[in-house]
């Protein structure tokens, strides 16, 4: 139906209707994007900008926040050893979790993709099972398992089989936060890796094997390089989510493994120092953003090299 006016417009001597259609065509993407852009502006950009603005404002003695603008909060954050330690703990826990997730997710994803439909479905169900249970419930489950006394399930097991002579202090440590975070964010690594592995043409590996490559060589030269984008996406997701997590470090880390998310909560809800809380949150967002940008750049460069 739309073809008739366009044809008419093409033969019109003035050319004005054709120009109108062309401009309407140019506007269409903007009109279609407007609702999502508006949503992002109101619910993402505005709070993020407010957060950044708060981090450079000054809080008076009576608690009011306003001018003058200052970078003193950032200076305070980066020059105080306690906060630098929290930042390093956050980075350390996030890196350990990401590394462990990558190491464990790859074999699981490989078995998931290369198994019979029944095994694949069973693994998929188990991998996504934690996503349908609240993170608080899962973390309390870990608290029961990692309990420091002999009543902790893992300690009970270690004592029973004679691997430990006395209960091991697992809870309220960085290791406990890594274990809890790994459990919470594990599906975020497995699913992108499985998706990347599933897209690899099996004929490529068959061709390599036919040409005399061993299974290990074919994995190292074909499967692994082609699945790296999925692994990179999974690692970026796990790093970003772990760095910003609050529930898991609060329940499993306590004061033994304080992370930036807990510091933000403490500064805003306990100390009522909103500008400093906003500063910590901005630093956290900046770290996560930097990791995401680097990951995207690496993936883009890789894609460009592969396209050549």
């Amino acid at each position, binding site marked *: 139906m739309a073809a008739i006016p366009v044809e008419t417009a093409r033969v019109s001597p003035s050319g004005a209707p054709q120009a109108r259609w062309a401009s309407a065509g140019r506007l269409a993407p903007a009109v279609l994007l407007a609702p999502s852009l508006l949503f992002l502006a109101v619910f993402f950009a505005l709070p993020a900008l407010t957060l950044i603005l708060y981090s450079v404002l000054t809080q008076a003695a009576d608690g009011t926040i306003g001018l003058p603008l200052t970078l003193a909060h950032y200076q305070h954050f980066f020059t105080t050893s306690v906060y630098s330690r929290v930042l390093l703990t956050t980075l350390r826990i996030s890196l350990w979790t990401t590394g462990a997730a990558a190491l*464990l997710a790859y*074999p*699981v994803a*490989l*078995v*998931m993709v*290369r*198994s*019979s439909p029944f095994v694949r479905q069973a*693994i998929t169900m*188990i*991998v996504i*099972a*934690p996503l349908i*249970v609240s993170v608080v*419930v*899962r*973390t*309390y*489950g*870990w608290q*029961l*398992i990692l*309990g420091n*006394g*002999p*009543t*902790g*399930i893992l*300690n*009970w097991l270690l*004592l*029973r089989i004679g691997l430990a002579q006395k*209960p091991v202090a697992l809870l309220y440590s960085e290791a406990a936060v890594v274990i809890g975070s790994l*459990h919470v964010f*594990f599906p975020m690594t497995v699913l992108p890796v499985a998706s990347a592995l599933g897209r690899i043409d*099996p004929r490529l*590996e*068959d061709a390599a*094997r036919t040409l005399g490559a061993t*299974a*290990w060589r*074919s*994995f190292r030269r074909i*499967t692994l390089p082609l699945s790296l984008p999925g692994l990179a996406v999974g690692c970026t997701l796990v790093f970003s989510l772990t760095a910003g997590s609050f529930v898991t470090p609060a329940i499993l880390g306590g004061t033994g493994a304080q992370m930036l998310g807990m510091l933000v909560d403490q500064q805003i809800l306990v100390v009522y120092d909103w500008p400093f809380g906003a500063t910590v949150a901005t630093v956290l967002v900046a770290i996560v953003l930097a990791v995401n940008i680097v990951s995207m750049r690496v993936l883009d460069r890789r894609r460009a090299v592969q396209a050549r």
Partner: protein
Amino acid sequence: MSTELRTPLAWLLLPVTGLVMVFILAPLVVTVAMSVSDTPLCRLPAARRYPRLVR
């Protein structure tokens, strides 16, 4: 099944996957087990060796 899972090296993936499955299910199973337990605390037999820690 692909050729990769038939090689001896590939069979190593299966125990790793099994352990990861146990790791994923452990806190969920423990939580469900606690919900049907008749004790208010998680009390296991080894606790008898440390009487002071048990209420």
